[in-house]
Structures are given as C-alpha cells and as structure tokens.
C-alpha cells in the first residue's frame, strides 16, 4: 500500500472524530512514514510497519470518553436525517409514548438491578466473612461462662471452635478482598467491551 492510500483509508476510518483530531492524526502518521522512508525503508515497508488503519482507528475511538462516543452517535444520526423525518420521529415518539416508555423503564431497571446485584454479591461476601469472625469472638466470650459454671470441657470446646471461626473469617476476608477486586476488574472489562461494541458498529 502507498502512503497516500494508507492515509486516505485512515482518514475515512476516523472521519467521525473531531476535525482537528483527524488532521493531527494524519499529520502524525504522514511524518512517521516519511521518517521511516528516509531511514531506508521502502514506502510499502514503512506503511506496513504501522499496523492496519482499522486497528489504529479502533484504538483512537476507544480512547475517546464514553460521552464523546454517544455524542458522536447522536450527531451521526442527526446529520443523516432530514428535518421532516425528525419531526415525524418526534410525533411518533409522543404518540407511541405508552409503548416505548415502559420498555425504556424496564431497560433502565435491568441496568440498575444488574449493578445492584453485583453490589449485593460484594456486600454479602463481606457480611458473611465479618459475621463468621463475630461468631468466633462471641464463642470465646461465651466460653468464660462455661468455665464459670464449671463445665470445663464445654469451655474448651467453645474456645476451640471460636478460634477456628476467627481463622476462617480471616481467610474469608482475604478472599472477599480479592473477589471484590476481581469483580471490579471484570466490570471495567465489561464497560470497555461495550464501548468497543459502539465503536465497531460505527464501521459496520
């Protein structure tokens, strides 16, 4: 591929980024190709070393904030529609309000409950871990009553179980800590995947 072909293709892929962003990117890659060629590479080699224009465009798009991606989608949509069809859409939105409103609300509900469920899992993990620990402490305190009322074996039994429970609680708390971190990391990956989905659909 020649330098011109590559840059034209790249420009097409990132056309929906802000204007000065497009110009800056093209200038940058143009300079990179020229510098590589001056360093002894052929034009084709210099272009090939940069990777595909698709992957460059995808990375640039995914690095945009979520709000910018949505805004661009809306603008894309607006620029494709004539004023008449926009008016028609508004009328339809109003008339069909009883139909789409419940759907929208339930979609929002699903999203909220999704995050609530994940939050609940995290809270539950910590609650279980901490309550095991509290149970252990309570048993150790309770064992003093065993000793006081001269049921010595019961006292030792309670202390033993209490210490075991505290040990279990420490392990569970460490486990909860890593589980929380893991869940948050998964959520980040998930949100990033959704962002990529939006970006990819722009190219479809």
């Amino acid at each position, binding site marked *: 591929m020649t330098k011109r072909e590559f840059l034209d293709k790249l420009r097409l892929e990132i056309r929906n980024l802000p204007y000065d962003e497009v110009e800056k990117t093209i200038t*940058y890659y143009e300079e*990179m190709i020229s510098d590589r060629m001056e360093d002894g590479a052929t034009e084709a080699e210099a272009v090939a070393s940069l990777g595909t224009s698709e992957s460059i465009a995808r990375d640039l798009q995914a690095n945009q904030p979520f709000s910018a991606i949505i805004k661009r989608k809306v603008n894309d949509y607006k620029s494709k529609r004539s004023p008449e069809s926009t008016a028609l859409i508004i009328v339809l939105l109003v008339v069909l309000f009883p139909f789409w409103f419940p759907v929208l609300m339930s979609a929002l509900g699903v999203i909220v409950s999704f995050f609530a469920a994940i939050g609940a899992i995290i809270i539950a993990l910590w609650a279980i871990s901490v309550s095991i620990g509290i149970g252990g402490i309570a048993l150790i305190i309770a064992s003093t009553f065993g000793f006081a009322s001269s049921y010595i074996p019961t006292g030792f039994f309670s202390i033993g179980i209490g210490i075991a429970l505290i040990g279990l609680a420490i392990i569970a708390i460490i486990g909860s800590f890593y589980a929380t971190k893991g869940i948050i990391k998964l959520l980040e990956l998930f949100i990033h995947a959704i962002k990529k989905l939006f970006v990819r659909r722009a190219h479809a």
Partner: protein
Amino acid sequence: MDIQLKRGLLEACVLAELDKGDSYGYQIVKDLSGVVEISESTLYPILKRLEASECLRVFSVEHNGRLRRYYRITETGRKKIKEFLNEWEEVTNVYAFISGINKGGQQS
C-alpha cells in the same frame, strides 16, 4: 504488563528522552525501542496526553521540504520525572519487601 502501569512507564520514558534534548516522533520510537516495547501507534496517544497535561510543547521544524513536529519538555514535565522517580523509590522498597517474603516462604 498491566495497561495502566505500562502507560505510566512509557510517559516517563518519553519525558526522560526529551529531557536529554528536543526530539521528534520517529527518533523517540527508535531511541526507546531498546528500553521498552513501543511503536508509533502507542507513542501517539502518549504524546497527546503529555501535551494536554502541558508536560511538553510541540513546534514544527522544516526538514527536507516538509514539516516535522518536534517535542520539547516543559518545567511541568521535568517535575513529572521527579515525581515518577520518587514514586518508584517507594515501589522498589515494596519490591524488596515482597521478594523477601517470597524467599522466606520457599525456605519453610
């Protein structure tokens, strides 16, 4: 390597390179490729971020009948290098601690 960690390392590498003198994109990639894995496409967002945070300034110089964009480090950029080095003093302490524990674990 963790993405956030790599990004921070690359930013510091670019600033350190510019601290030696003004440079341009391809030269930066060439000089750093011996130290850390970097390509033109990974360098681009880093330069953008450093410019946005005013760690470097961009200016154009004519070269062989075309314009080449040069990057110059600012005071903020130099401060950033110092911050990075201070932070990594902490990290190396933690590293020593962690690897010490691991050795203890292997002996037992």
